[in-house]
């Protein structure tokens, strides 16, 4: 593909021209933290962030999504018929997504789009979106992407990768979608070899800055039962308050619950994020709960991410090392420590 140049001073114009064709989502700082929001003007974008507090997964997999609607009015012709809730999928750009989060969407993709099942909403959104990544010049001390198959300038899941070189961005197109996007925005100037060299050096330098490493090499060969029955779970789980912080902030957690909500005769079938940390997650209609205590729920979260996912999909671990759960767990349960415990059991 190709390496182009976008001058920083031209960024507002670039975004403006994108907005002619696309809905643009970008990191915006509000109430003290960054998150992806639709860009209204070009002025409120803020690229001075290590990562957004909430991951961009909600753009493809919203916390609450109306899937179907139905009408319970017997008098109406379509009574009791469940219909897909109308939605549109305008072309959209996720601008400034970090490489770990782009990789996370690939991790989730095996769940939502596979030979057995294709989640229609996920698939259509994936198709309608173009991902313009922003490499990380200053990774945080909690970033461990390089240990889990990604990196501060990893290309997986991206259509364009931006290298922040001070005055300008080098924009590396990685797919046809990416080519098309830069084309439409009128980005023509090619990067010369000196600039390309700078970009490569930046990448190398950033990778070296990742100070946090986790071991994963032995996870695959470990027996599920040995990990499941490992002696450390009570200790890992003690502090946990079983909240939804780690799973809701995580860019790879995909679990959901489906609920019908009815107002008068009009019903909606809604899909909501759920979390394996909640007792209700596994509660059976009989009242039996196979994961009655928090230790079982904590174990499930880590076993799913570090063992079951890899065993099932042969696709690494279901953690991209973004560090959100490390930073925001209120009681400092640190997945990096659990990597060590599980891998080195």
């Amino acid at each position: 593909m190709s390496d182009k140049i976008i001058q920083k001073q031209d960024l507002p114009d670039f975004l403006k021209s994108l907005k002619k064709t696309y809905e643009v989502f970008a990191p915006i700082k509000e109430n003290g933290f960054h998150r992806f929001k639709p860009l209204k003007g070009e002025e409120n974008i803020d690229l001075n962030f290590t990562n957004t507090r909430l991951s961009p997964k909600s753009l493809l997999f919203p916390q609450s999504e109306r899937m179907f609607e139905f009408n319970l009015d017997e008098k109406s012709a379509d009574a009791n018929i469940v219909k897909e809730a109308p939605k549109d999928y305008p072309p959209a750009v996720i601008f400034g997504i970090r490489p770990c989060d782009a990789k996370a969407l690939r991790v989730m993709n095996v769940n939502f789009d596979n030979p057995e099942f294709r989640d229609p909403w996920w698939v259509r959104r994936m198709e309608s979106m173009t991902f313009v990544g922003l490499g990380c010049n200053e990774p945080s001390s909690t970033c461990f992407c390089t240990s889990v198959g990604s990196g501060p300038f990893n290309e997986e899941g991206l259509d364009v990768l931006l290298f922040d070189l001070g005055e300008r961005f080098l924009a590396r197109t990685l797919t046809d979608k990416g080519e098309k996007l830069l084309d439409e925005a009128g980005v023509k100037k090619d990067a010369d070899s000196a600039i390309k060299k700078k970009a490569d050096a930046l990448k190398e330098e950033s990778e070296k800055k990742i100070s946090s490493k986790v071991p994963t090499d032995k996870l695959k060969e470990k027996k599920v039962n040995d990990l499941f029955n490992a002696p450390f779970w009570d200790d890992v789980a003690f502090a946990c308050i079983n909240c939804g912080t780690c799973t809701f902030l995580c860019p790879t957690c995909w679990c959901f619950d489906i609920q019908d909500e009815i107002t008068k005769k009009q019903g909606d079938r809604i899909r909501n994020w759920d979390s394996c940390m909640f007792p209700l997650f596994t509660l059976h209609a009989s009242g039996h709960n196979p994961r009655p205590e928090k230790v079982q729920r904590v174990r499930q979260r880590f076993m799913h991410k570090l063992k079951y996912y890899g065993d099932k999909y042969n696709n690494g671990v279901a953690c991209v090392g973004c560090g959100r759960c490390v930073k925001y767990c209120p009681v400092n349960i640190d997945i990096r420590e659990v990597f060590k415990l599980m891998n080195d059991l």
Partner: protein
Amino acid sequence: MIEYVDKIREIAKKILEEKTVDVIIGFKKGTLPLMTEPTLINDAEKTDQLYWSSFCNMNLANYLPKRKEKIGIIAKGCDSRNIAVHIVENQIKREQLYIIGVPCKGMVDRRKIISFLDGKEVKEIIESDADITVKGKGFEHTLKKDDYLQDNCRTCMHRNPVIYDTMVGDLVEERKDPDPYDDVKEIEEMGSEERWGFFSNLVKDCIRCYACRNACPLCYCPTCFVDESDPQWVGKSIDHTDTMTFHILRAYHCAGRCTDCGACQQACPIDINVRYFTRKLNKDVLALFNSEAGLSIEERPPLDTYRPDDYDKFIR
């Protein structure tokens, strides 16, 4: 506060060795400079894992309900009050506990430090009695702890544990008459619509993760009303009505029981100060019943008692 560490370890070791208790609930050093992790120690040899700093912001009383063994628990002022609430509400027995009181000089709010640093990352901290030095790439600042305390700690009037079996240091002087309710009064003065707007705005980004509820020692119900599925009282989506229902109802369940320990606010991953809900109720309970939660293990919380001489006619 850091000077308490040795004392905590010493006491913990002793009471485990002497079998006064089976386990100790305390804090250990966090993996991040501004964090600590609640921990359970059952081996006298491991008591050197116990730690104390100005970032022990979770409320350890939260870990008591349903426990059967004899427990040594580290308690700052607010934790001790929540322990008292638990005792009164039969969540734990006084005889089960050996309370290691920590006279508290207030917890430092990591968010205030993070926001002061505006994106720069803390790599290391050094605490002294009144100051905290934060270091990172290309910076070093020495900050006055008092300027970075959690909001609840700024106005806390019970920094010394109210019940304890031993104390790790000399009592600290209690604050004289701070007015904790300035901002509550401002909200009271709003019209009903403006007030609704204030609270709607407060929780508009709530992700219903329930960290606030789960960090709170008061929220020990076996099944919280929002988790009840048969019947289901509250919707599960992030619909505003359901989110508001959660917060308002939870706050009412805490009325007369909340110690304003701040754990709920500290736990929220997106910085929502849910104490705005509970503090109005604390203020009212104080004004109406002259009561503050957790100051005694004799008295039941004002909202679950009945007095024949109640001044309100409707209840007599």
